[in-house]
């Protein structure tokens, strides 16, 4: 043949790729897929929604605001920030057993942990136990980098400085006597925070590592004395500190304070009257913040959240409705056979 004799050095390669003939799957939004798809998704969503909703309904939550805005509140007396070491009481009663394990949270509202400069105001190196940064904390901590005497603040920064410092004691009133409900404060922070991210300097006693530094100005105790009862719960690995340092994404948030898992209360809080004793230290009223305590139990889907279940139900039903609409439209306007 002539063709073979011709010089064909420039002839492009005959591959599926260069000739744009790659085998391909070419799906189309056809009625056979879309309408049943919507029905299936709708039904599945309704199913999930029902499950979520019921689960969420079964979670018990007890929320109590103790900011002390209302004059009737016992904590009203403490709402003056100049009042130090004020304690107030919050009394409530449970008509049914509050099923355990019960988690005890404190909640803050209108509190902007999500503020950028607030969140950035900490020293990762210092918190991971690097002694160099004990002497010279990073500038991001400013103005809580050094105190007035140019002594480094450890832990530095706004985030650490503003650590929540109200403390709570829960009593069950049994026959007029107060019975302390034991709190479990262990393992309330993330495992990774406790074991990897935050570490104390390997100096014993821990106190020595803090030589030449000062405690954050809002703190009443230095970091190494946060928990006098448990020496291993001090410094940067103090559970309350860790919980606080995991800053919230939203201005309304709750943080885990204690778990109620021990003794008579392992299966929950029995019905009865309770009294919560609050050491009211943390000022929030100045910026319109609110403080509350929350008792809650959890399920497989976490804490109580009605939204997810309802959203699934709504979306699922919408899907089913939409599939009906599409079916009607499809029946009316079948694809034109001719073109």
């Amino acid at each position, binding site marked *: 043949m002539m063709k073979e004799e011709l010089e064909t050095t420039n002839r492009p390669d005959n591959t599926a790729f260069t000739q744009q003939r790659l085998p*391909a799957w070419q799906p189309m939004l056809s009625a056979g897929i879309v309408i049943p798809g919507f029905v299936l998704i709708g039904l599945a969503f309704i199913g999930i929604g029902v499950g979520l909703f019921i689960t969420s309904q079964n979670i018990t939550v007890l929320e109590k605001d103790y900011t002390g805005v209302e004059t009737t509140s016992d904590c009203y007396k403490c709402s003056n920030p100049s009042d130090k070491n004020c304690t107030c009481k919050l009394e409530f009663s449970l008509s049914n057993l509050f099923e355990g394990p019960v988690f005890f949270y404190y909640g803050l509202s209108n509190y902007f942990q999500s503020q950028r400069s607030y969140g950035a105001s900490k020293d990762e190196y210092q918190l991971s136990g690097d002694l160099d940064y004990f002497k010279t904390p990073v500038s991001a901590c400013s103005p809580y980098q050094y105190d007035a005497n140019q002594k480094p603040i450890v832990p530095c920064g706004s985030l650490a400085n503003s650590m929540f410092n109200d403390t709570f004691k829960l009593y069950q009133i049994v026959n007029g006597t107060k019975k302390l409900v034991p709190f479990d404060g262990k393992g309330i922070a993330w495992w990774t925070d406790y074991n990897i991210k935050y570490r104390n300097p390997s100096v014993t006693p821990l106190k020595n590592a803090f030589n030449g530094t000062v405690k954050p100005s809002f703190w009443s105790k230095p970091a190494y004395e946060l928990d006098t009862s448990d020496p291993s719960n001090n410094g940067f690995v103090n559970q309350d500190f860790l919980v606080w340092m995991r800053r919230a994404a939203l201005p309304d948030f709750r943080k885990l304070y204690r778990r109620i898992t021990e003794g008579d209360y392992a299966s929950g809080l029995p019905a009865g009257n309770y009294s919560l004793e609050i050491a009211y230290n943390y000022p929030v009223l100045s910026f319109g913040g609110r403080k509350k305590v929350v008792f809650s139990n959890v399920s497989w889907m976490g804490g109580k959240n009605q939204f997810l279940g309802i959203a699934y139900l709504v979306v699922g039903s919408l899907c089913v409705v939409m599939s009906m609409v599409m079916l009607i*439209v499809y029946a009316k306007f079948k694809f034109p056979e001719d073109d």
Partner: protein
Amino acid sequence: MGSLLSQLGLECGGKAVKEEERHLRANDRELNLSYKYADNAIKTSKYNIFTFLPLNLFEQFQRLANAYFLFLLCLQSIPEVSSLPWYTTVVPLVLVLSMTMAKDGSDDMNRHRCDKQVNNRQVEVLVEGELQSEKWMDVQVGDIVKLENNQFVTADLLLLSSSEPLNLVYIETAELDGCVSVCCMHAFPEPFCPCVGEVRCEPPNNRLDKFTGTLTLKGETYSLDNERILLRGCTLRNTQWCFGLVVFGGPDTKLMQNCGRTTFKRTSIDRLMNVLVLSIFGFLMIMCLILAIGNGIWEYQEGSKFAAFLPKGVNAPFSAFLTFWSYVIILNTVVPISLYVSVEIIRLGNSFYINWDRKMYYPKNDTPAEARTTTLNEELGQIKYIFSDKTGTLTQNIMTFNKCSINGKSYGELLDFSGQRVEMNEKTEKVDFSWNNLADPKFCFHDNSLVEVVREGNPEVQAFFRLLALCHTVMPEEKKEGELYYQAQSPDEGALVTAARNFGFVFRSRTPESITVVEMGELVTYELLAVLDFNNVRKRMSVIVRSPEGKLTLYCKGADTIIFERLNPSCSNLTEVTTLHLNEFAGEGLRTLALAYKDIDPEYMEDWKLRHHVANTAMDEREEKLDALYEEIEKGLLLLGSTAVEDKLQDGVPQTIEQLSKADIKIWVLTGDKQETAENIGYSCNMLREEMNEVFIVSANTAEEVRKELQTARRKMTPDGTEEPTVKKSRSGLFCLQKTETVADEPVNGEYAMVINGHSLAFALEKDMEIELLRTACMCQTVICCRVTPLQKAQVVELVKKYKQAVTLAIGDGANDVSMIKAAHIGVGISGQEGMQAVLSSDYSFAQFRYLQRLLLVHGRWSYLRMCKFLRYFFYKNFTFTFVHFWYGFFCGFSAQTVFDEWFITLFNLVYTALPVLSLSLFDQDVNDWWSFQYPQLYTPGQLNQYFSKRAFVYTVLHSGYSSLVLFFIPWAAMYDTVRDDGKEIVDYQSFALLAQTCLLIAVSIQLGLDTHYWTAMNQFFLWGSLSVYFAVIFTMYSNGMFLTLTSSFPFIGTARNSLNQPNVWLTMLLTSVLCVLPVVAYRFLRILLWPTINDKVRYKVRQDKVLPPTPRRVQARRTSTRRSGYAFSHAQGYGDLVTSGKFLRRTPKSRPALFSQTDSPLAQTQPQFYRTISEREEPPLSP
């Protein structure tokens, strides 16, 4: 090439004194060097090793986008403002810069190599009386160089002497103007004398058609003009050697001076994108402003009180000011740097597809298609008007002698036994011409009967071919014995003379007074008494010859109508039969000529010759007198028959034109040919059709008449149309600075066509009439402009560009098409022919016109589709990404806190979504190429800008607004006040960031899947791969190891582990994905049902019939029209004068007519298309 200009500019700028006059002395290097003229080394490269980095960076930062990112980087280095760490900008920026740098670097390396190769070419230089071989770059101004045959001309030379008689040289100017024809240059008649000549001439300039200077030789001064200058870029042909004096070297040569600036063509998408990007910036500023004001208010109401925990020494307005800039940094992702990179990559990829396409590869001359510009692809999918050259583009510029009618008998048809016509193709048996050793082997003819008749000695047939061998102005060239080469003024003539040659009447040689022909092996010399030349009015040419026997004969060939008027009445029977044959030929689109002869009485001849001489030397009314004389003698002719020459169309031209017009593309033919020729081609390629309501011919001589003809045509097409054109004025471009006027399309009541000639076009293109022309022309299905100059071609293109706001494409092969190729949005060059200039200035090139349909309907359409999909998706993805930040502003005190992890922000465009979207925009096709051809209507959405417009953009923004609301508020609501299943925290910032970013990535990935119509393995791989990479990366980045090595960079440690094991996190992702996607699915499904586009319909159809039906065979209908004459001849006026004057060898042809000038001189017109353009855009062809 712009680089070259800047280089030249730099060098010119460096010179303190501008050169006023060039002065040099032959062979006196010392003196010449003292003037410091540029030597012959050229430099087209931009950089050297040391300047590369700074220069390249400087250039890159001149691009607005890069500068903007540099600015962002500066912002980020201010700690008060910096809302994102530096690496979020640096990583992409460095990547982009280094990619561009690598590309520029390799380009420049090529230029270096090319320069080196050219500079090191050898040439012989005369040094001290001896020839020495030197490198081109060492040649200096004033040197005398010796060139040999087929060598490139070293520099701009003053021709001194040559080997050929009369000191002629033949040069091919292909690299300069695409013209292959050999033209002769004229050296000095004096013997060559080195050493003493002194030259003064003009300074270097870029005018190819002009040269002024003087040569002083032995005290005498000669003036020098253009004809004595050999330009660099030409090639010496058919000349053994020549000597030349270097006048301009290297950068001063006209070729290099002509390598003008690159006119960057931008696509309409580009322009739209600029507008969009600008408005996006405006939008960005508004968003930042809102957030900044929000921040001000927040600081005032909350922040100042929150100061107990977050002391700040700043007041609210200043904080708002800082926040503004912080948000500028965060929200810059609306126009990420990767947008520009991706667009470039997509265009590059789609250009490669064009280069790789085997269906656009022409095996005959081994030419693949080439995308010479890689930035215009998507515009190929939006073409509305095509401007095509004729010769060499639609036609092959090959004329073949196909048929003839001799003495009432038609030859050339092949009939089978039953008397049926046999379809001819390559395999049809050819006539054997081996009996004739002078035959042209390339000639082919299929009808054996004609040969038999000739060899039998039939007198009419012999007379027929004798006429063809005698009556012409062809010049023969016989380099070797028996190897004849004809230089014909037009290919028609060449075809006829070649036919005669093969049938045994070989035109061998000519002198001014004689023609030598080998008649059936016998050498016969005829005395040439007169040539009655061809021109447009006469439409015929005759020669009067005296045979060796002393018989005087007039041979005449011309348009049938003209010849028939002049026939002897005795021929009436023959005329009838011949007319039938002529109609048949014309019906097949062949060009016909009628042939006739007449014996002349010697006495009458004497008398006539005398009068001819008188008339010829008359001072006034010479033309008229000559015409009258010719008229007198060309009478009473005896008809011999007729010829039919096929102006061979390129393969598949009519089908291509049909396809393109189905795609609603209008094709205008702009040709330098005569009206008849152009019309003829119009019919044979189906642009003009018999069934058209009317073909308007505009060929008036005054402006008023032209206007009238145009108006009449228009009124006929829209009897009830408005007189005033509907002009829509609008503004476009950046800041709406450009005013545009668009003339609306008007309805037409039928199919019309228009043929307008160059003369009328000149009037019609005047300012006051152009709209009239445009309106009328745009109503016609077909517009043919004939006898147009290159400048007019460009003007027509500009006119349409200006008033139609449509995308135009110009296709051509010759130098005369360069102007229109450059003027149009997209220029296509037909490659493979010898001339290069059209290709060099084109954006795309391929070997055959028919590949245009593939370029547009397949590659163009896909490119457009892909680019639009890409842009829509890209803007969707980034707007969604950015809007989420906007919403989060309301929950973080407008503090420019990012929602996502900083690493995610860095990698989102660069890693997680880069490849899937690239694979979408490189592989996606709605339907395959076969279906694209089946439904050319699929092309129309591109013309109407339907896939990506401001409107589509607004939809995209609204869509991303919705998605971002879903993507922020669903996680917000789902996570609000909730906890992990072990009661620990999950609404912390890091977990929320992880959730939000994962939702976002999944949602945009699914959206990508929805947009993908063509899932290749690559698409699957990249999409799933990117998602897996995302999860792999987050688990790696949030791992203990990464934190321990780089504590401050990876603070998200443990987030992935702690939050991705939560069922509610996954349920939230599922919900957001479904909420983002299902409305789109429902909308699209309903849209396809209720308002299906052509695209949807075809896709549906493709689904219906999986098996491809066989391609319907298109048989071109034979036209049996009797309305037209097939007469056409491609040249306007013959060489007759030259042939008879005897000066034809010594003539000084105006080989470089003034630029685009319309001279009436016959010589200027007879020159084969020979225009040059001043500005060349592409690389000069420096290497062979």
